[in-house]
C-alpha cells in the first residue's frame, strides 16, 4: 500500500474518482432525461479506464517484486519435503540424440533404489524410484555421456525451499525457479525432476493451496491498510 501510494498519482486518482461519483449522481438525479443518463454513463466508463490507467502504472512497478515474492513463497509452500522412509521418483529427460539406456544413477548414502528404472523411449525419459531413509539434503546424480548431473533432494520435517525440477537455462525458469541451478544449455539432459507431493493447507473443512490464503490475506490486509493510510486504490 505504501509503495502504491507513492508510486501512483494519488491526487489525480482522487479527482477522477470524484468525477465518476459526480456522473453516478447525475444518473440518480435525472433518471427521466435519457440524454443526460447516457452521457453520464459514457463519462463513468471513460473515467474508469483513465482511473485504471493510473492504477496500472503503479501496479507495473509492483509487478516484478510481487512475482519474486510469489515465486519464493511457491518454492516453500507449494510442495512438501520428503519424509524419511518416503519413496519418490527421480525423472531424467534426455536429449533426443541420446540412448536412454546409457543413463545411470548414482545415489548418496541414505538413499536406495527400490525398483528397476523405467525407460520410456517415446519420451526419452528414465525414471528411478528411490527411497530416502534419513533427514537431510541429498544430491543423487544422473550420469550420462560421461557427465554427471546432480539434483538436490530435501528430506525434512521443516518448511524448505524445494526445486522440483532442474532444467536448462531460460527466463521463465529464472522467474519460476529462483535460485535453482540450471542445466548446461547444450548438455545431454533436458531436465531432472523430483515428484514432491503437493502441500495443501486446511482451514476447517476447506483444503486448498497456499496462494488462496495468501491472496485472501493480502486483500483483507490491503483494504485495511488502504483505510489507515488513506490510499486511493
Amino acid at each position: 500500500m505504501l509503495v502504491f501510494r507513492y508510486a501512483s498519482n494519488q491526487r489525480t486518482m482522487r479527482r477522477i474518482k470524484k468525477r465518476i461519483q459526480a456522473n453516478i449522481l447525475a444518473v440518480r438525479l435525472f433518471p427521466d432525461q435519457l440524454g443526460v443518463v447516457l452521457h453520464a454513463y459514457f463519462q463513468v466508463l471513460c473515467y474508469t479506464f483513465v482511473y485504471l490507467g493510473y492504477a496500472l502504472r503503479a501496479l507495473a512497478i509492483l509487478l516484478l517484486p510481487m512475482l519474486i515474492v510469489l515465486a519464493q513463497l511457491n518454492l516453500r509452500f507449494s510442495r512438501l519435503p520428503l519424509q524419511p522412509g518416503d519413496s519418490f521418483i527421480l525423472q531424467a529427460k534426455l536429449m533426443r540424440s541420446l540412448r536412454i539406456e546409457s543413463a545411470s544413477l548414482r545415489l548418496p548414502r541414505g538413499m536406495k533404489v527400490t525398483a528397476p528404472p523405467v525407460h520410456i523411449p517415446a519420451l526419452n525419459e528414465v525414471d528411478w524410484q528411490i527411497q530416502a531413509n534419513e533427514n537431510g539434503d541429498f544430491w543423487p546424480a544422473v550420469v550420462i555421456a560421461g557427465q554427471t548431473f546432480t539434483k538436490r533432494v530435501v528430506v525434512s520435517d521443516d518448511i524448505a525451499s524445494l526445486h522440483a525440477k532442474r532444467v536448462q537455462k531460460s527466463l521463465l525458469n529464472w522467474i519460476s525457479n529462483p535460485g535453482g541451478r540450471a542445466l548446461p544449455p547444450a548438455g545431454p539432459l533436458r531436465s531432472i525432476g523430483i515428484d514432491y507431493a503437493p502441500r495443501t493447507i486446511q482451514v476447517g473443512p476447506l483444503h486448498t493451496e497456499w496462494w488462496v490464503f495468501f491472496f485472501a490475506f493480502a486483500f483483507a490486509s490491503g483494504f485495511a491498510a488502504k483505510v489507515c493510510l488513506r490510499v486511493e486504490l
Partner: protein
Amino acid sequence: MNRRSAIARVLALTGPLVASGGCSQQNSHVADRAVLVLGIDGMDPHLLRQYMQRGRMPNFQRLARLGSFKELRTSIPPQSPVAWSNVTTGMDPGGHGLFDFIHRNPRTMLPYFSMAQVEGPRHALHLGDWVIPLSAGNAINLRHGSAFWQIVDAHGIPATVLRIPANFPPVDCSSRTLAGMGTPDMVGTYGTFSFFTSDPTQQGGEASGGRIYPVGVGGGRVVCTLIGPQDTFRNGAPQVPVPFTVWLDPTNPVAKIIIQRHELILREGEWSDWVQLKFSLVPDIESATGICKIYLKQVRPCFKLYISPINIDPSQAALPLSTPGDYVRDLWKRVGPFYTQGIAEDTNARSDGVFTDEEFLEQSRMVMDDQLRLFNLELGRFRAGLLFAYFSSVDQNAHMFWRTFDKDSPSYTPELGARYGGTLEWFYKQMDHMLGKVLARVEDIKATLIILSDHGFAPFEYSFGLNTWLLENGYINLLPNRGPRPWDLFDDVDWANTRAYGLGLQALYLNLTGRERYGIVPPGAVAEALKAEICEKLLAVRDPATHLAPISRMDRAEKVYTGPFVADAPDLVVGYNRRYRAGWKTAVGEFDDEVLYPNQEPWSGDHCIDHTLVPGVLLSNKSIASQAPALTDIAPTILAEFEIDKPENMAGQSVFHS
C-alpha cells in the same frame, strides 16, 4: 450393467448425514470400569480347540485357563449381518429386522442388500445436462433397535466401537464408532475392482465382483480409464471417468503409472500404497475423493493391472463413516489411510480368477494389518469404558482357504495343501498374537475381556440350487417361450402360477396373497400346509453322491423370531447340512444349472447352513456361568458389566450370571 448390478450400485454421493450426539447421564459408580470386546468373525470352536491342543494358540489357552471358553449359539440364519445385529441389539432378527444378506421388496420383487441403503436427493432441479439437488441425500442403516453402545453412551460411559457389521451409516451417539460391514465403496457397491488386461483370452465386461477392461499396448504405453462414482449432478448420473497412462519398460518387468497428479513406479507383483483420487462432479466446484490400491500383476507377455475398489477416503469422507463425524479423519491422521469398505478382502477377485491364492493372501494380510493398526491405536489409549473391535480376516480366509486343508473338498489337491494348508491357522495365530497384547493390557487396567465370534465354519463342498429344486417340484412355474432353461427368477417366472421362491442365502418365501405383488397363496391354513409340505420334501432330499441329506433343518419364521419385524421375515429359513450350501445363483434369485453339484470354486468354506452346526466361540477372563450362551446374551452381558439394566426387548441375559 445388469439389473442386479444396477441395484447393487447404490448412489454413493449424496452428502453426509449429520450425526447428532446422544443424551448422557453420568454414572460415576461404574465410570472406571473397563470392558474390552473382541469380535472375531467366523472363529470356529472346533478349529480353535484343535489349534489350542497343538499348542499353536498359547494366549487363547491362557485365557481359557484363566476364565472360560464355551461355544456360542449363533443366529438363525448364521450369517454375519444377522448374527452381529443379534450381538448389537440383544434381539433376534424379528427385533432388528435383518434376516439375510439379501432381502427383497415384495411389492417390486427386486432384491436389495439388507444392511443399508443410500438414497439420492428426493427433489432436484434439472437444467439441461445438470441436476441441482434441492434436498440432501440420505444413507439409511436398515438395522433397527438400540445398539448396546448407544445405551452405554446414554449412561455417560465412554465407548469406542470399531467396524462392527451392520453399522453403516453409524447410528447416532456421542461415542467413537467406525462403520464396518455394510459400508459401500465409492461406486455404491460392496466392492467393485477394476482389472485392465491385454490378455486376449480374458473376456472383458462385468465379473461377479468387478469389471474387466481389455486394453492394448502400443509403443510401451497403455491408456486406461478407471470408472469412478456416479455424478449425481448430471442427468442420468453417469460414472466419472479417470483416464490414466501406464508406461512399460521395454526390458525390465516394471511400469510407471500416471494417474491424476500421482506418478508411481511398480514392479511386477508389487502393490502401491494408497492412491488418493479426486472425482470432479461439478468442475472446480464439487468433487469427491476416494482411495485405491494398484497392483501390477504382470507386465509381459500380457499386461495385467488390478485396481482395488475405490474406498471412501477417510480424510474427506463422502458418506458418514463415523461418530463423531470427524473420528474417521482423526484415525486417518494417526494411522494413515485404511480400508473403509465394509468387506475389504477381495474374495471376488480370487473367485473371478483375477487374483491367485498368493495374491489374495497378500491383499488379505493388508486388510488385517489395517484392522490391527486401528485396534492397536485404540487399545493404547483405552483406560476405561467400552472398547469393541471387529476382525474379519479369519472369516474371509476360512471362506477362501478351506479347500487347502480339507481333503474332502472337491478342489483340494496335495500341492494346494502343501502350499496353503496352514494359511487359516496362520490367521488364527495372528489373532492369538494380538490377544497376547490384549491380555497384558487387560491385566494392567483390570478390564473384563470378552472374545466372541458370530458363527463357526463348515466345508462347502456341494451347492444346492433351491430355485431349481422348487422349479423341478412344481412350486415355480415359468412363462412360456423363455428359452431352453430359465435364468432369472424375475424375468422368467410366471408369478401367477408360482407358490414359493428362494432369494438370499437361506431364505425361502411363499408367494403370499396380499404381501407379494402377484401373490397367489392365501395366508392361513393353505400357507401353513404349503410350508409343511415344502419342509417335509426338502428334508427328505438325498444327495445320490454322498447319500447325505443336503438340508438338515427348516425353521419357520413365526417359531424362531419375535419382535415387530417378524412379518418381513422369510417364511422358511433353510438350514443346509454340513458340506452343503445354497448355490450362488439361488442367493440372487437365479436358477442353478442343477439341483446338486460339486463346488469347485475357491470359496470353499461357509457357515450359511443349519445354525446348530456352526456355533461361534465365547471366551472371557471371567467365569461364564451360562450353560448355553447365545449371541443375544452379549449386549445384556456388556450392559450388566456397567450395572445398566437391559431394555425389555433384549432377549438374553448376562453370561456371567447363571
